[in-house]
């Protein structure tokens, strides 16, 4: 995960989740995003970013998001005990089972 901070805002990228669809790149009003050599989302320059969240709203994969007040959390999934795809080994603990 990468974070770019300006003032009280930060733009977060999670390249692991990125599928390279380019929707955010095409929708960014300041054109600060691009796909890097491995086809993952990257920031060209952060200064023009206005933290409008259009990239965040368009991203089907939750790979890019904005956070306020500089409290970066490792992921925007703070409360679940079950892992999401690709993050850690899942177990069957807690699943409905008899007795």
């Amino acid at each position, binding site marked *: 995960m990468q974070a770019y901070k300006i003032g009280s805002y930060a733009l977060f990228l999670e390249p692991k989740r990125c599928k390279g669809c380019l*929707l955010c790149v095409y929708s960014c009003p300041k054109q600060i995003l691009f796909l890097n050599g491995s086809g993952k989302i990257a920031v060209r320059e952060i200064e023009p970013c206005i933290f409008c969240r259009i990239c965040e709203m368009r991203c089907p994969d939750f790979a890019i998001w904005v956070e306020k007040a500089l409290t970066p959390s490792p992921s925007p999934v703070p409360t679940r005990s079950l892992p999401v*795809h690709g993050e850690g080994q899942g177990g*069957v603990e807690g699943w409905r089972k008899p007795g």
Partner: protein
Amino acid sequence: MPNTKALASYEEREKRFTGAHALCAGCGTPIAVRAVLNAIEEPVVVVTATGCLEVATTRYPTTAWNVPWLHVAFENAAAVASGVESAYRVLRRRGKISKEIRFVAFAGDGGTYDIGLQALSGALERGHRFLYVCCDNEAYMNTGNQRSGATPFAAQTSTAPVGQESFGKIQRRKDLTEIVVAHRIPFVAQASIGDWYDLANKVRKAISTDGPSFINVMSSCPRGWGHDANQTVKITRLALETCFWPLFEVEDGRWSLNYVPEERLPIEIWLRPQKRFAHLFEPQEKTELLREIQKQVDRDWERLLQRCEVSACASV
């Protein structure tokens, strides 16, 4: 109506649906799902029909859902939702649940227009309080682009392929939104991932409705429609500009139009970038078919304008 700031502020809420799911790059469905769930403030329970959304987000033992989520089968999302909603009502009455919960069902066009139509119709008629969202990508995309009742005229699919004797689907798509309107439920709307303000607004209205509500959301499938992943939003936008997929809502029987393009684009502009319509342009342009498609769009648009005008007059 929410503005960009309001929409952006929805994103600050805890994520109800999260990433690292296995949906294709540029898929329109997760965009619709996050927009819908973001616009709801209340605790929400989600029911999903079998389809891409279900298969790609809940590969056991992982999940992309941060809200209670239930899948039973393909054709019964509305029936399952009516069961959950009924359980909620009686458990609340018996004092076992105290808070207000909202219910949303997601299904694709196959699970709504075709195999799930009966269950949907029954649930709407019974008046359960839930929002049914159809993510309409105009074919059975989970199984690899087969023709559905929502597939448009002349589109190429794997079960209505183009060949010497065939130009793709020979029938028109069915107007599901109008079928739902005929159930006289309090809120029915057509929306698109190409216009978030409108979609968020409709979700707010639908979720505060005391009764069933239905939103038909156009959501493109880059692989099925045959366009680059980065064109997902643009293509659905073009469907609005060509009036192929108009945005409208029907509140208690009153029709109103939510978007009128300044200049109506010819349907060709929407068709041309999609490979499923490539046979209309290559090797040579099928002018007659294109004219027929344009005629259908014109007729539907005019009909819609009339309905909205009549509603406007009646409400004066």
